[in-house]
Structures are given as C-alpha cells and as structure tokens.
C-alpha cells in the first residue's frame, strides 16, 4: 500500500496553482494519472520519485516513511525503491545500451536479471549501440529496461509513449504490461490517451488544476453509459461506410482491423479517426485451444 499526500504551490503557464492531492495505491496495481497538460501530473510523479520536494506532505510505502514534512524528513531519490521512465528517455548519451543498463545495476551486478530484462525488451541486437543511433521506440525500451535493473517496487512512467507514433505505441504498451505483471510492480503512468488508459490501467486518478476530481476504474471514467460487456477493446475507427440500413465500421484494434455492423443511429457521431470502445456481451464466444 502506498499512501501519498502532497501540497505544493506551482507556477504554471496560467499563473499560480496549488497542487493538493491525497491518494492511495494498492500494491501491484496499475494506476494512470490522467489530466490536461499543466494539471500537475508530471510534478506529482516526480514528487513520488523524490525529484521534487512538496511544500507539505506525507508519503508512506508499505509502512515505511518516505516523506514527512512536519518532521522534516525526506528520503533521497537515491534511496527510494522506484524506477523512473522519462518522456524524453533520458538515456546517458556517453554510454552504449548495455553500459546504460550496467551503470544502473552498479556494483550489485546481477547478470541473470540484466539478461532477462534485455531479452524481455528485445534489446539483444542493440546492446552495443549508442542511444543517439536508436529510434524513439528503441530508446524507450532501453529506458524501460534501465528503470527495472534495480528491481524497483514502484515503476513511474512520465508520458513515456507520447513522442512515439501509433504502431510503436501499442508494442511498448505490451512491453510495459508484461514487465508490470512479471515483476509484480506497482505502476503509475502519466497519460492523456483514453485508449491507452483503458488498455493498461486498473485505476485512474483524474487530475484537474492540481486536485484529484475523480478516481475510478478506467471504463467507468471513459464510457458514459456503463456496459456489462465482458469483452472490451479500444480501437481507432478507420472507415465509416453506410450500406443501406446498416453501417459498416472498420476499426483498428491492436494490429487487427475488424469490421463491425452498426445501426445508422448508433454511429451518427462517429467518424474516421475517432477512438472507440468495442464491447460484446459474452453469451456465445468461440473458444479454441491454440
């Protein structure tokens, strides 16, 4: 269990703002901090990592105190059991991929863990390359692996995918989900993409002007009418094609394009490029052993 309570005056583009939040995260949960830019999402994440000091606050991780401003106690970022992935990767340009990871592991060189991370993030072929020669998606994979070298309990991701294009995003989301489950991490992701959030998170904090205004499951926040559907996917509408009484939607889900028949009424507001939720009630799915 992670308990956080932070207060800090911020100087943003729209003048002064008070960041004032209180929340708790379950161990092993995947939480997304969602909000407009300038709402204080990144600041919040950096406070958890200890990179920014709040004016007032408390933070407790599994009964261990990380922050207690009334008693003037603040655990240094070095001693926090967190792994951080930055929006612009922050790889050390003077080191190769492998050196970046080895630097993180330091004297406690756990080789098998390092190799495991390299294989999960598929960095084997890139290990001797310098970051400047890698694509954005490759760099972010290195950053993800590097953040996990020290076996953190908490993984903090600051909009790690926002600079990447759509196809690479999906792949990286899968990597993140895989390590989240494999290493039993408590993960906090800053994101403003509903599709991404519904795919990845089990808990969403909505941050508006420095305060948490909503806190719920992603589907409850992003779908207006609650569905009892058992299968849910998010995707992007590629084409809306009216065919007499019905309309055929082509939707890209992951890497698959599916065609869905809808009534004209239902799709009046939907156009190509929209992010949509596709749900089905599960009374007769086909199940096949593979």
């Amino acid at each position, binding site marked *: 269990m992670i308990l956080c309570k932070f207060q800090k005056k911020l100087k943003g583009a729209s003048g002064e703002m008070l960041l004032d939040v209180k929340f708790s995260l379950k161990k092993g949960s995947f939480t997304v901090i969602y909000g407009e830019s300038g709402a204080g999402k990144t600041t919040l994440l950096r406070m958890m*990592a200890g990179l920014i000091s709040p004016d007032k606050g408390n933070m407790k991780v599994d009964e261990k105190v990380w922050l207690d401003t009334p008693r003037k106690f603040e655990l240094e970022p*070095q001693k926090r059991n*967190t792994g951080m992935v930055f929006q612009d990767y*922050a*790889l*050390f340009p*003077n080191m190769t991929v492998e050196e970046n990871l080895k*630097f993180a592991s330091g004297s406690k060189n756990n080789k098998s863990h390092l190799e495991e991370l390299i294989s999960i993030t598929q960095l084997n072929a890139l290990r001797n390359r310098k970051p400047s020669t890698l694509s954005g998606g490759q760099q972010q994979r290195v950053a993800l692996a590097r953040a996990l070298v020290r076996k953190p309990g908490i993984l903090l991701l600051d909009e790690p995918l926002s600079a990447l294009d759509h196809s690479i995003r999906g792949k990286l989301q899968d990597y993140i989900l895989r390590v989240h489950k494999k290493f039993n991490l408590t993960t906090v992701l800053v994101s403003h993409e509903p599709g991404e959030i519904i795919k990845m998170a089990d808990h969403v904090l909505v941050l508006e002007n420095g305060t948490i205004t909503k806190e719920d499951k992603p589907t409850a926040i992003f779908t207006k009418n609650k569905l009892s559907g058992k299968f849910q996917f998010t995707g992007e509408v590629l084409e809306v094609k009216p065919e007499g009484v019905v309309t055929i939607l082509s939707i890209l889900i992951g890497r698959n394009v599916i065609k869905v028949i809808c009534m004209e009424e239902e799709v009046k507001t939907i156009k190509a490029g929209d992010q949509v939720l596709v749900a089905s009630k599960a009374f007769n799915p086909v199940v096949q052993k593979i």
Partner: protein
Amino acid sequence: MEWGPLLLTLKLAILSTFFLVILGIPLAYWLAYTKTKIKPVAEAVISMPLILPPTVLGFYLLLAFGNSGFLGNWLNEVLGIQLAFSFTGLVVASVIYSLPFMVQPIQSGFSNLPDNLREASYSLGKSKFTTFSKVLLPNIKTSLLTGMVLTFAHTIGEFGVVLMIGGNIPGETRVASIAIYDEVEALNYASANRLSLVLFVLCFAILLLVYLINNGKRFWR
C-alpha cells in the same frame, strides 16, 4: 633564436590550464546548479577579467602580492613564497586572469545538459559524485576542450597582467609576449619577428586542431 621566452610561455600556459581545470570544473558545476542568491555576484566576480583592463588587474595583484601587501607579506613570512616578480606569481595571476575562459564554457556545458540525465541517475541510486563523474562530465567533453584551449591560448597571449606582476626577468617572468615588446623597443625587429611568427603559427595550429576535432565528432563520441 632565443627559445627561453617561448618555453617559459608554454610552461606558464600548461600550468595555468592544469590548475584551471582543477579549479574551474567544481566552480562551474556549482554555478550551474546552485540556487543561492549570491550566484550573480559570484558570476560577476569570475567574469571581471573579461572586461577589466589587464593593467588594472595586474596592478591590484601587484599590491596584493607585494611584500607590503597583506597577502604577499603573509605568504612570504609563513610559507616563504614570493609572488610578485616570480614565476609562481605569474601562474597565480594567469589562473585568475583566465578563470572566466575556463568556467564559462563548462558552466554552459552543464546548463545545457537536460536535467533528466541527472535525475535519471539519482533515481538509479547514484550519488551526486558518481553522477557528476560518470554522467555529466563525459557528456560535456566538447565544453571542457573549449575551456582548456581558450585558457591555454589566452595565457599565451597574456601581456598586461604579466608585465605588471612579473616584470621582465629573463628565465623567470620574461614570457614571449614581453620579449617581443622588449625587442621592438630595442628596435630589434628581426628578433621580434621570429618570436611573433612562432606565436602566430602556434595559435593558429591550436585553433585549427580544435575545429578539426569538433568537426570530426566521432573522435569525441
């Protein structure tokens, strides 16, 4: 050809650059990351030699280093070091005089590095010192090189400060720039010409080397 003044100039430039590397890096690091309110004052003091006439700086150093000055008196009495009209004094004066040429490029090198690099290193459990030596310093190599070359070249070209604090003692404080002035005054143009040509070629060669290295980035990355 008299090699003495040239060798002395090179010795002075090498020693000054060496001490400035040791002094300049921590100073630049502090200036780049400090949040203290006296930072503008510190920056102004360090940058003074950029605009102050060398004679003014030399004059004050002479007052301070001379045996009647407090500092010079103390150094002479306690440590037995004579700064005025000595080679040691020249090195100290050069270090002060060239300080901004070393500190400014390194400071801007540090400031231009993304903050994320430091933060990433901290969040990976690395101390400030490890972060400094393994992450920050290796990534500002070009700034370091620029600082070193600028101070080296600046020390070679030093004249006013040297004249004020060092005088013109052969083998001790008679560096090339002073020797040239001396020869010209003695209407010894041929000798002045030889020395000047050597300095001219040397300075060009140093700068050419820097630009070659900077253009062929592979060398540094």
